[in-house]
């Protein structure tokens, strides 16, 4: 792919990094949220579910603005994180946050569906064999929901590759820092004569996601074979 310019390569590398980080970063939170929704019985469960789905319902730009309002350089949360050495605004870390937030509802739903399909009787069995709740979770529940985790990761990764509305709104479109493939494509499409560059990047994006998908399908097939299902 020598037909990509250095700036474009930069965007590809950044997108990849952002997508991987976003997918992995949101995994534990997605798991926690999915658990709460699948197993929890607490007041406000419906509202919590709505909150999780919000990034799906809102136009991405709105989500981006909300992130900007919450984590911008002049917002208290943003300042706090900055002081803690994790600046977000207009950094690639912010792009990760934006992508993670946008992919969150997808990840939560995938994990939740898997969780709801877990045979609780196996967890009971683990308990009678001496496994604490944490251990049961780690050794029984987690492996059994692996398909959901994998699906969640794939969805979050793919979404992160395609996401630009919230990203560009929250962290702008700064080459090498926050200009992901999607932002670049968008910028190219807005400028006169940017189509060819946009098409090139689109193809790269498709290739990246295809690779991720094939990897995930292969992993899923291996898991299924191991379970013998």
């Amino acid at each position: 792919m020598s037909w990509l310019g250095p700036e474009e390569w930069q965007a590809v590398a950044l997108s990849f990094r952002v997508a991987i980080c976003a997918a992995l970063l949101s995994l534990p939170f997605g798991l926690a949220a999915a658990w709460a929704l699948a197993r929890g019985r607490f007041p406000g469960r419906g509202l919590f579910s709505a909150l999780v789905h919000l990034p799906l319902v809102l136009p991405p730009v709105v989500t981006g603005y909300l992130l900007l309002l919450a984590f911008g350089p002049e917002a208290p949360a943003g300042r706090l994180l900055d002081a803690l050495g994790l600046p977000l605004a207009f950094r690639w870390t912010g792009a990760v946050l934006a992508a993670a937030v946008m992919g969150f509802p997808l990840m939560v739903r995938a994990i939740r569906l898997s969780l709801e399909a877990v045979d609780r009787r196996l967890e009971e069995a683990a308990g009678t064999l001496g496994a604490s709740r944490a251990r049961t979770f780690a050794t029984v529940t987690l492996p059994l929901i692996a398909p959901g985790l994998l699906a969640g990761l794939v969805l979050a990764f793919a979404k992160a590759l395609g996401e630009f509305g919230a990203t560009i709104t929250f962290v702008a479109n700064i080459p090498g820092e926050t200009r992901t493939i999607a932002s670049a494509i968008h910028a190219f499409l807005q400028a006169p004569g940017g189509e060819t560059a946009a098409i090139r990047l689109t193809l790269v994006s498709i290739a990246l996601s295809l690779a991720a998908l094939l990897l995930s399908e292969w992993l899923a097939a291996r898991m299924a074979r191991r379970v013998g299902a």
Partner: protein
Amino acid sequence: MTLSVALRHRLSPAFALEVAFDAPPGVTALFGRSGAGKSSILRAVAGLIRPDEGRITVDGAPVFDSAAGIDLPPHRRRFGLVFQEPRLFPHLSVARNLRYGRRALGLPAAPAREAEIVEMLGIGALLSRRPSGLSGGEAARVAIGRALLTEPRLLMLDEPFASLDAARREEILPYLERLRDHAGLPILFVSHALPEVARLAARIVVLGDGHVLRAGPAAEMLADPEAAELLGPREAGAVLTGTVGATAEDGLTEVHLPGGTLHLPGVTAGEGARIPVRIAASDVILALEPPRGLSALNMLRCRVASLHRGKGPGVMVGLTCGPDALLARVTARSAEAMGLAEGLEVTAIVKSVAIGPADLGGG
């Protein structure tokens, strides 16, 4: 170590458990028809159901006490439970299923013990397989092994042999007997097969519709003509305790009872050992005087203690043979023809081979 259970729990508008019983070390059989509540009791004891009310204690220490607000989670109870279905972990190999409990409990690996259990259960060839392709009986055996390897302080077995062939049962029963005799742990055993129950259990709890219908020592329950009705008349029988004597060249071992001597095959306990011998009521023939020229070697002199007419054409005859109680089931016609009456002296004839290993304790 003794388990005490007293609980009340409503499972549905139509079904409520209300039971109280004790299980001392040794085997306590839960017996009862399908839907009587056996599995639910095991679930409650294991901590998988939280009873509406009650107390479950081990040597007086509660694992559950609704009044005191105590409810230990299952893993802190350290009670092993072999469920009615195998419930194997589909993502782990058979070997890792077997080792699951020890690892969870932080117990050291026990290769010798594991090898012994694998050998006994005949699952050596399955170790590297996943559970999904196992046959019904294979899965059941792995589930038994998995629970045994955790070295629980209480063992619960829910129809563990339902899908196993007789030969396989014969290989597992001696193991359970050794466990019962040497580990000193209470074992709750659910089974529909009375021969197994009679062989293993020291106590029987008969359940019906969520309630304890009758409970007591196995020997008494099995020899009690009234309890026999609950257990099923064809299954009734007595459990006598005998002293092992000499074993002859032909493989028959003398077992001395106060009322006489039995010659039994397949006795593995050493000379001098005291073992329980189950004699099913339907395997006993009564004779007014000791007959001759008969293929049956075992005859005991007994006295008729009671006569119970059941609903069918049978009569359950309670006998005392020295200090032991024996049950015989004969037809009413025979009872009449023989003039059976309380106090009459009779000879009880038992075929040696009618007492198979399944009815023999010890081992």
